[in-house]
């Protein structure tokens, strides 16, 4: 990335974006108070939401839902329409921001294939289906508002989550609800919280509401692909009961087509006491991928499914290849590679995660915040996104001379580090998020891990004795 590109990101705020975010913020504040009694301010926020969608296919249903909810008739269907309206606005924000990013970086992105909406197979989930409990719970949450969430309401989420976990097609919903309820449980009584994460919880509420409607349609343009996969870095996601490693990589198709920017993702269910480097132990079903990350090597894949930019990992169709330096991959291939579009239902600014290479000095502010300086143009470094399962620390990032990361947007642009080249005590150091994928390589951290013991083994032993009785 160059300084001029940073300037283009900073100065080229998409037209209408601040207005969209204000409308969303109004809705989010209403959800803090709940829809049991809609006051003047929240009625105005709902009217503004309807106004923002006027003239679109969602216009009429949103206007009706906003009117009914304001008048005190709060049905799950009305709430689902409002959730859809909010999601549509943030989807538009995603598109505008990603467009701005592509223009600034000169990144080529293939368009989402146009499909006939009538041919989309996913119909609405039947009433009383497995997602009905989750929908009823989200309905209740919206009525009480975040401020009204109590132990009783949280206990009521148990059965819907258990039901959703048992249905493979509802895993996304189950994982979302598990993450949301854990935060609410830690925040009860929410009424006394000095600060409610209004945008975040409304994001999760709205996405949850959409996921209870119908299974998202499969990505069109699905096919299989063979070629050489060159990892750029790995982004780790986790909450109490789920972990996911998302590898960003360049795929060089075997048929000689242009290089493509892809993501491949593996994950596992877990429990809250499995944290830090121990999460890699849950992904052992993918030894080739873990070895490729830990040893920084390329992988040859044969006939694997590719949905848009999402390469479905299949360890049996992958073979470990030659050493491949992710920084070299980024220098040579990030420019010409074609990026993939985001699936329509996943479009939200939080989904923006674009690999970039930053070669510049890292500056540490008095308050500890880090920025990369590119020809006088600063890029904020998001040190909150350094994973517990990898070697990157704020101190190491502060010493970086080159940084491979993901460009993200969360009410502003920042870069999430995936790997750094740094100088520590005059010695060159290289560290990647995936370095510990095959086992911790840092003696101090390995010792601490050994002291804590093998959580998975202890719990499996307990499960073996107690679960099948």
């Amino acid at each position, binding site marked *: 990335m160059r300084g001029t590109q940073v300037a283009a990101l900073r100065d080229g705020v998409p037209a209408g974006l601040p207005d969209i975010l204000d409308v969303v*913020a109004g809705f*989010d504040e209403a959800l803090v108070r709940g829809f049991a009694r809609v006051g003047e301010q929240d009625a105005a926020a709902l009217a503004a939401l309807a106004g923002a969608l006027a003239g679109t296919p969602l216009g009429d249903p949103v206007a009706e839902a906003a009117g009914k909810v304001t008048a005190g008739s709060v049905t799950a269907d009305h709430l689902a329409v409002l959730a859809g309206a909010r999601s549509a606005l943030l989807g538009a924000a995603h598109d505008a921001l990603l467009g701005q990013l592509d223009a600034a970086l000169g990144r080529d992105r293939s368009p989402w294939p146009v499909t006939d909406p009538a041919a989309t197979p996913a119909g609405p989930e039947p009433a009383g289906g497995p997602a009905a409990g989750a929908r009823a719970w989200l309905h209740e949450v919206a009525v009480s508002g975040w401020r009204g969430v109590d132990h009783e309401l949280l206990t009521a989420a148990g059965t819907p989550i258990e039901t959703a976990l048992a249905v493979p097609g509802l895993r996304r919903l189950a994982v979302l609800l598990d993450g949301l309820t854990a935060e609410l449980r830690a925040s009860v009584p929410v009424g006394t919280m000095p600060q409610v994460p209004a945008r975040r919880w409304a994001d999760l509420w709205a996405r949850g509401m959409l996921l209870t409607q119908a299974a998202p349609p499969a990505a069109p343009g699905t096919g299989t692909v063979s070629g050489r996969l060159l990892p750029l870095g790995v982004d*780790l*996601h986790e909450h109490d009961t789920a972990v996911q490693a998302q590898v960003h990589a360049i795929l060089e198709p075997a048929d000689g087509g242009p290089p493509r920017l892809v993501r491949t993702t593996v994950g596992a269910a877990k*429990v809250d006491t499995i944290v830090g480097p121990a999460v890699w132990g849950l992904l052992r079903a993918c030894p080739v991928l873990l070895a490729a990350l830990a040893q920084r090597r390329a992988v040859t894949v044969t006939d694997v499914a590719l949905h848009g930019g999402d390469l479905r990992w299949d360890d049996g169709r992958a073979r470990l290849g030659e050493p491949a330096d992710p920084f070299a991959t980024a220098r040579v291939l990030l420019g010409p590679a074609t990026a993939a579009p985001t699936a329509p239902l996943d479009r939200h600014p939080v989904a923006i995660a674009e690999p970039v290479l930053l070669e510049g000095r890292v500056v540490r502010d008095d308050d500890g915040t880090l920025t990369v300086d590119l020809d006088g143009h600063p890029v904020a470094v998001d040190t909150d996104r350094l*994973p517990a399962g990898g070697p990157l620390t704020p101190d190491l990032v502060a010493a970086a001379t080159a940084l491979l990361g993901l460009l993200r947007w969360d*009410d502003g642009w920042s870069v999430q580090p995936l790997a750094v080249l740094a100088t520590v005590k005059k010695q060159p150091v290289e560290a990647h998020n995936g370095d510990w994928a095959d086992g911790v390589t840092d003696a101090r951290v390995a010792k601490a891990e050994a002291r804590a013991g093998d959580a998975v083994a202890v719990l499996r032993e307990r*499960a073996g004795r*107690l679960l099948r009785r």
Partner: protein
Amino acid sequence: MADADRAAWRRRSVLRVVAPARARKLAKVPFVELADGRLQGVVSSGTDIERVYVSSVTATTHAYHCSTNNNRPCGGLRGAPCKHLHALADEAVVQYGVDRVARYLRVEVDDTVATGRQVLSRMDTRHEPTPAAVVFSRFLRHLAYLELPASPAPLPELQWFPSTVAGR
């Protein structure tokens, strides 16, 4: 927090609302949680590998109980919390930190309180039998996560939940 920071916080999608649990040895107390308005969990018996105790302390009333998973009362309850409840509280503090445990149980603590046992000693506790089944079934559900098959497709919602180094 300044007003400007406060407003910015409300407009962020990705925030660390709660610190991740800290790793701890699980052999003695395989399960601890702050849920259903209680500090509750499961403590392995020191003598019988097949037996576990279900222990809990209620946040509002400070009522405690300990029994086997078959509802047989713990013999160590003699007008005061038993060693299983002490172990449960100590491990809860390791996992969540003393502040979060004290806040959930609504106990006033100062800087001298460092262990779960000390948190318990600051409470006006009383014994009140509660059924073990609710907690025990939550423990079984907890264990069942380890048996759950992985999702074959990516979970886009986990973009809201980045792994974070804070808390290590």
